[in-house]
């Protein structure tokens, strides 16, 4: 069984790269799209199979620098599904007039498609590997690996704003990860062993509180400060709205729905590994602090009229804050909220970003200005945008409503009345802001539109599947807090 898990783990990471290599000599665009889709489908099937096998395990398994536990299964599944969706909508983006109206692409037009898929494959491959990383050092390397590929993808269109966003993203996240690396080096230095296995999650958990506990605290804080820059938690979030709004929409979905949570998982694993040696209160406080500050910073921006993708980017800041609070509280009820929130956010946010391509086709000015009156020109598109934003706002019966209730209830039950009260107020304000954007965007006075905004059958199918999954999640959310999955997650995280 362990060998099978290891083999599947390697296959999951290797398949996207293999697909990118196979398409390089292919010149015809439609063939490139088709071949990459095949490899993506294979990757997703492998990843979901692996996740399914992991869930059947009675206890976590660590092998050859990989770890197979509940958290791996969850985050791997999310990254796989988002990658699949992004691949399916990528051809529409690549063919879109928006892209080719740009006078200068970052890559030559002849090879742009293949460079895009190469960068996408490298990025996605690293994302799929992160949940399986069984070692802090290896996890850091994988997180760093996502930066290079995704920075080029952010600047893919070659527009001035995209280059600016790509530059800021590269510089700020690399700086953050350098600080995190300093923390890893300090952590390694305080341990007694001298091999890579010293940084295994299990080995770090076995560290006890010695005279070096202040050293461990400093190392933990440096690691978390660095990872916070990559997750985009406030106050080190400055790159996030720019990168997510300027990247190609399929890449924005990967950035928001897969990258941020995957990096947060690394922080979560560090918290779980070090909470005994550093102190449970201190590690939780770091997460809760980042969560509350992120919420507080995001909410005012959600009230401002802004372009569609930039609105979704600030929404990501809000939702990463909620997840941080849930992880910081760490009770089974809070973790149930985290699970539901993670999945629902990934589905809804991806749907929102995928809507950007048809939106910009019908309202080109929506790339720079708030969308207006979409329902009047494109009812189908408006429905999809409405589902996305309605879900993200936490409007019942959105699964995010339930997840936020779980997390807030967990805060109150833990006796943290100030946290619960403050988070409730901030979430309510955020909800109202997004609701306002939803109403104005769909029903406001119509902007001049081009074309009829017809959604392709593929996009409509994707939207239907995502909506079905969201509804299923909302319907089953109440069963999660007492489930075996949450119990196993709690045992790992506790």
């Amino acid at each position: 069984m362990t060998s099978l898990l290891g083999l599947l783990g390697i296959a999951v990471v290797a398949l996207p790269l293999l697909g990118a290599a196979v398409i390089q000599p292919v010149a015809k665009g439609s063939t490139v799209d088709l071949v990459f889709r095949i490899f993506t489908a294979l990757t997703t099937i492998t990843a979901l199979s692996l996740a399914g096998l992991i869930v059947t395990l009675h206890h976590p398994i660590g092998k050859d620098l990989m770890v197979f536990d509940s958290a791996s299964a969850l985050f791997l599944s999310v990254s796989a599904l988002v990658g699949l969706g992004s691949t399916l909508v990528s051809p529409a983006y690549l063919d879109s007039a928006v892209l080719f109206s740009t006078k200068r692409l970052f890559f030559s037009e002849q090879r742009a498609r293949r460079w895009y898929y190469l960068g996408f494959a490298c990025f996605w491959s690293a994302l799929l590997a992160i949940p399986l990383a069984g070692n802090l050092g290896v996890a850091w390397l994988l997180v760093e690996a996502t930066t290079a590929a995704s920075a080029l993808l952010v600047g893919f269109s070659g527009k001035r704003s995209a280059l600016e966003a790509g530059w800021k993203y590269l510089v700020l996240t690399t700086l953050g990860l350098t600080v995190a690396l300093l923390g890893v080096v300090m952590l390694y230095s305080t341990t007694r062993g001298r091999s890579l296995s010293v940084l295994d999650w299990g080995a770090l958990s076995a560290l006890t509180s010695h005279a070096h506990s202040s050293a461990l605290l400093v190392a933990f804080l440096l690691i978390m400060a660095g990872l916070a820059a990559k997750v985009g938690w406030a106050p080190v979030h400055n790159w996030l709205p720019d990168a997510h709004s300027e990247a190609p929409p399929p890449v924005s979905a990967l950035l928001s729905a897969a990258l941020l949570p995957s990096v947060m998982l690394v922080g979560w694993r560090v918290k779980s590994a070090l909470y005994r040696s550093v102190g449970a209160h201190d590690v939780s406080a770091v997460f809760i602090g980042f969560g509350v500050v992120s919420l507080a910073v995001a909410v005012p921006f959600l009230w401002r009229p802004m372009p569609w993708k930039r609105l979704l980017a600030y929404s990501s800041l809000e939702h990463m804050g909620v997840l941080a609070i849930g992880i910081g509280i760490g009770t089974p009820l809070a973790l149930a909220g985290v699970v539901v929130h993670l999945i629902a956010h990934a589905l809804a946010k991806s749907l929102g970003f995928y809507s950007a391509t048809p939106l910009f086709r019908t309202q080109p000015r929506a790339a720079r200005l708030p969308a207006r009156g979409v329902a009047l020109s494109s009812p189908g598109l408006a429905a999809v945008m409405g589902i996305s934003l309605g879900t993200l706002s936490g409007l019942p019966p959105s699964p995010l409503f339930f997840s936020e209730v779980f997390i807030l209830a967990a805060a109150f039950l833990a006796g943290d009345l100030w946290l619960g009260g403050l988070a409730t107020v901030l979430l309510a304000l955020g909800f109202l802001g997004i609701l306002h954007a939803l109403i104005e965007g769909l029903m406001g006075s119509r902007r001049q539109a081009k074309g009829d905004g017809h959604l392709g059958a593929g996009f409509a199918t994707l939207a239907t599947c995502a909506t079905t999954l969201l509804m299923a999640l909302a319907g089953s959310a109440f069963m999660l807090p007492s489930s075996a999955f949450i119990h196993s997650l709690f045992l790992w995280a506790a």
Partner: protein
Amino acid sequence: MIGAIGWTMVVLAVGVVVVRRRSTAIGLVTLQALMLAALELFNASNRSSEYLLSGLALLAKAVFIAVVLGWSVLRTRQDRPILEDSASPVRLLIAVLGALSIVALLPLGGLSSTAVERATIACVVVGIFILVLRKATLFQVLGLLVAENGVAFAATAIRGGMPIVIDLGVIFDIFVLLAVATALHEGIFHQFGTGDASVLRDLRD
């Protein structure tokens, strides 16, 4: 001796804050990287042969920095020098005072010695100041490299060294990041006509 190496690296880092020419700054950062490679190769005599490989990889990194960034400077010649917001003596004062303050305030974190720890933190902090105080995009790349060299110094100074997988992985990451950063820098130069990061102000809320 190791403390002396560390503080020499800090002095080189401060030099990057002050110097005007990009090529001089690249030379200083390359020298930092060469010192790291020399330290690792010296330590390799007391460790397994894996550390010889690590030392050679650090040497390759130093050469890569010089070649890639030097080539980029040749391809992105500025018509006029980029005017900084503050004069070099002011930048020097800010960087030195800032680094010394943070070194004094930050509690010790368990690195192999106090001297190593202070030199590492000073290097990382000066790297951050380079990012903040210098406007040229290439200088911002150098700031990242200076900070990373500081961390690499701490790793090299650990008794027994860091795991070879981490050492080589980090060096490989630097290769890739440097290539990407250079590509973006050249994209910015050709799009904006300058490598001045202060023109990157379109995106605001």
